[in-house]
């Protein structure tokens, strides 16, 4: 038993080795090259920036693990943040408004799942269509007057407040991380998610209702996107119609950097968290080093390729070496 667990730890440690190395290298490089990097203020700031993509990416990781994809999360984030803001602007109680936003995100996700499983439309197309629909709905909401001046002090506290010197969004992300970690690793739901992604037919023959697992996964993704949207609207205290655009790509990148397979059957909650922090680190570092906008994009792209490459290399080494 003991030798077994030890071996297991060794193998798992190797699987996340690549991303951790990249994280450390970036960290050390930035500490050396910018005197502003390693300050409490900058690090909190950086963590705080990673939270929004991270929340979305947790959900996307579940979806990818079943072998699906969710392109609608960016728009869902915008729409649900917008709806919560709009409701509060029109006098709804803050908690009710938040609940409504979360519920809407969950329903949209479940709807995605239904379309995919019942109509057998590919996840790519179904969620791509939802990307447009949700964005369009948000534009309708903002057509007459912009959504702003809704943030009560309590609402603003969610994303701008501190507790024990640490920003609230970081606490929220930590809580969500723990819940997702538990869901993914310790419940039958998490087990079924990877089973469906590994071999859908075999999972079905093993008595798993693959359709219900898929619907739940998309619902979870919608719920988490909505929570990120509400948090972002609290942070910005206004909702622009384009809020959350292209978040789906950042979220997928964070998940894949963290070792999630785009073909299903493999995912990691810790990996996602590290992936999201790496993305925030890159953007923060480029800010500090005052890199020109064009180079920023190129460098970001290159670092993503390197990060994924290193992770793939170290984890295949772990298997065949």
């Amino acid at each position: 038993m003991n030798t077994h667990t030890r071996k297991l730890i060794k193998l798992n440690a190797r699987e996340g080795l690549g991303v951790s190395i990249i994280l450390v290298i970036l960290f050390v490089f930035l500490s050396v090259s910018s005197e502003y990097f390693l300050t409490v203020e900058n690090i909190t700031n950086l963590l705080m920036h990673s939270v929004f993509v991270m929340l979305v990416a947790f959900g996307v990781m579940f979806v990818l693990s079943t072998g699906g994809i969710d392109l609608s999360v960016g728009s869902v984030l915008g729409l649900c943040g917008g709806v919560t803001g709009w409701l509060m602007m029109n006098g709804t109680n803050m908690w009710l408004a938040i609940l409504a936003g979360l519920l809407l995100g969950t329903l949209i996700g479940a709807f995605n799942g239904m379309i995919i499983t019942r109509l057998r439309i590919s996840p790519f197309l179904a969620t791509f269509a939802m990307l447009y629909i949700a964005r369009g709905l948000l534009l309708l909401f903002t057509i007459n007057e912009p959504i702003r001046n809704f943030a009560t002090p309590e609402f603003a506290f969610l994303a701008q407040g501190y507790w024990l010197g640490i920003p609230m969004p970081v606490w929220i992300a930590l809580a969500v991380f723990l819940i997702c970690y538990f869901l993914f690793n310790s419940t039958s739901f998490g087990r079924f998610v990877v089973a469906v992604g590994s071999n859908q037919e075999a999972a079905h023959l093993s008595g798993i209702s693959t359709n219900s697992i898929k619907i739940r996964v998309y619902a979870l993704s919608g719920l988490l996107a909505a929570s990120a949207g509400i948090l972002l609207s609290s942070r910005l205290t206004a909702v622009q119609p384009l809020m959350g655009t292209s978040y789906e790509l950042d979220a997928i990148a964070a998940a894949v950097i963290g070792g999630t397979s785009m073909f299903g059957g493999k995912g990691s909650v810790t990996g996602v968290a590290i992936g999201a922090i790496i993305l925030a680190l890159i953007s923060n570092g480029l800010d500090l080093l005052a890199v020109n906008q064009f180079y920023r994009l190129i460098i970001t792209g290159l670092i993503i390729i390197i990060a994924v490459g290193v992770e793939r290399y170290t984890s295949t080494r772990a298997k065949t070496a």
Partner: protein
Amino acid sequence: MTVEEDQVLLSLSGITKRFPGVLALENVSLDVRKGEVLALVGENGAGKSTLIKILSGLYSKDSGEIRVRGKAVDINGTKEAQALGISTIFQEPSLAPHLSAVQNVYLGRELVKSVVGKAVRAMNEKEMYLETARLYQKFFPSVEDLHRPVGELDALKNRVIEIVKALSVDCSVVIMDEPTAALAEHEREVLFDFIRLLKAQGVSIIYVSHHLRELFLLADRITVMRDGKNVATVNKEDTNIDHLVSMMVGREISNHIVKEKVPLGKVVLEVSDLNRRGVLKDINFHVKQGEIVGIAGLAGSGRTETVRAVVGADPIHSGKVVVDGRPRRIRSPRDAIQAGIGLLPENRKLHGALIELTVSQNITVASIKRILGQRFVLKKRKETLIAEDYVKRLGIKTPHVNQKVRFLSGGNQQKVILAKWLFTQPKVLIFDEPTQGIDVGAKVEVYNLIAEFVRDGGAVLMVSSELPELMGLSDRIYVMHKGRFVCEFSREEATEENIMMYASGGHE
């Protein structure tokens, strides 16, 4: 025994390969002579497939030397292997499911022809088709399937297409890793004839199989592997099955099926008027407590379709399933498991194994409730203990139960799937080709487990292409032909001849 240097086509010396926690090959040396059939045997996980993958360029060896016609070579990738004249049929199906047979056979080396002068060239569809059809027709008379995506064809046809693919390459060595798994008797004969033909043309064949009997029809020499080492290479004339088995497992075992008589109880599973248009017609049968019932038939006769229909994996147009006297509506495998019926499916790679999951996760996935504590929390410690118990009982070769199933040898994957279904502890267990790819020692183990299951009051329905196995275990045998149950034999009445007669439609 000395051999002329120029008779040796392929020579391996000191090949070693290590995976994390497993020494898969240790200092393996062997020669393959021109125009011989060299059989490779050994228990599950002995290292046969690993050796083959090294020869075909899929894995790189840690140390050792490979010589082709006396020249030391490095083989990186299947293309290089093919250029050296080595062509391989792998144990796990490796066809692209969305491509047709013709496209698969010529994948990556499509034939071309000039259209306008020399400059513009197009694929020579006609020639590729003709050549594929020529080889394919040696197995099946009808070529209408050649343009359909191979994913829509059954396991047997896929196998044949892989064989055709390997043979269509100009090669001096053909390696076959368990090519007859899931092939029926007469289809094997066709393959054997073909192998003899190749041999007569001077092609060497490396042949891996767990069917020791067929080796004596085919092989010139037999190499026995155990725990990653080659134990011995013997001429066919100098050995017999018992000798081979004792070398493989390193101890004496009996490979005879002993079926003990269990008193039969009430009817556990009763299926009546099962119909699926164009596939199954008026199927009626029952299985009693303590009984093992076999279904015999040729490939394509509807055996797999029948058992899939019973567990709700395929849609049916009519039919009634009664379990323990209670009519059950079964529309999905989930319903079947809840009703107490488990199906071990035929195709390991497509339907059985969750290769990205670990051994223990695979074993518990169909009965997750039994390791679920309060509030949906998995009891991982309990799961590990259960898995370790099955690993021990079935002799599954794996460094630990948290190994991903992807890294297990084919036969060991099959054992994991068996463990999964045994752990569901159903009332009725349906096995579709339960021992495919399993070594002789483990087969006896599996038979014992099946016997133990019925002794404890379970009922078993079994499909198998291996008549000796089917006849040795079953209390009763149904014979299928063209989607119908055409006949029923008791254990005493069943003979190979009368089963084959009904199975091939000779009674009509």
